[in-house]
């Protein structure tokens, strides 16, 4: 009766290709999640920044400087008539 054969250590080494690939896959998933979260946060943050700085700059929308051909002026808040179309400016910027 022969004694059981000694097998080499089945654990892969640090440079094992499959281990490296698995680690890469995990990293890729983590990076994808992080990128999605960061992008969402950045969109919300920059939209808020745009809103916060809108009134303070002379060229901003709230300063009513967006006058260009094709620019549609928003209807006045007090206007209750639904038949009145918004005025379209025809002047140059």
């Amino acid at each position, binding site marked *: 009766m022969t004694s059981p054969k000694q097998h080499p250590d089945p654990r892969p080494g640090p440079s094992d*290709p*499959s281990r*490296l*690939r698995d*680690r*890469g*896959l995990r*990293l*890729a*998933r983590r*990076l*994808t999640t992080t*990128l*999605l979260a960061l*992008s969402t946060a*950045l*969109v*919300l*943050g*920059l*939209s*808020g*920044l*745009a*809103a916060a*700085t*809108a009134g303070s*700059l*002379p*060229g*901003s*929308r709230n300063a009513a*400087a*967006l006058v*260009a*051909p*094709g*620019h*549609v002026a*928003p209807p006045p808040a007090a206007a209750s008539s639904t038949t009145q179309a*918004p005025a*379209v400016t025809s002047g140059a910027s």
Partner: protein
Amino acid sequence: MNALWYLMRGTGAVSLVLLTMTLALGVANHGRWAPRNTPRFVVDHLHRTASLLVVALLAVHITTAVLDRHVAIDLADAVIPFAGHYRPLWVGLGALSLDLLLALIVTSLLRARIGLRQWKAVHWLAYACWPVAVAHGLGNGTDVPHGGWMLWLTGACAVTVAAAVWARLTRAPRPAATSAPTAPVVPTTIHAPTGALR
């Protein structure tokens, strides 16, 4: 509705940031660069994910621009360059940039059919897409002439691209033989369209 306008500006700015990231990763990928102990397909994967995120954000950017009634931009203006009435040059550059990006994505999706050489030729358009998008942002940004945050953001993006191109030109590419042994293995579970914007 003002929220649409602000969301349009936010998505436009983040699209530029992600487009910059895509370009920088593409430049790095061309030089077979990857961080130490990281397989190169991770860089490739991030490049693809960022490019697809750009498309998603541009869809929101265009939708909000069309829905916002403060300026008269319709869907055709967003797709056909220089056809609109509102700031035709700057909006037209945005439309041109979108068309270039769509060409890049479609050819990447059809890469196996059209062949590597044709795909590569079209992929060089990426280098034209980015400055056109930058010009669109600078020309349309209402606070840019007054040194607003968009100007600083664009400057940071320009520095990033310049650094990536400089690194690419000054460093020798990693030999193909020493690239990660698992490079051809691309997981299908973590990115949707295989082969997009490699």
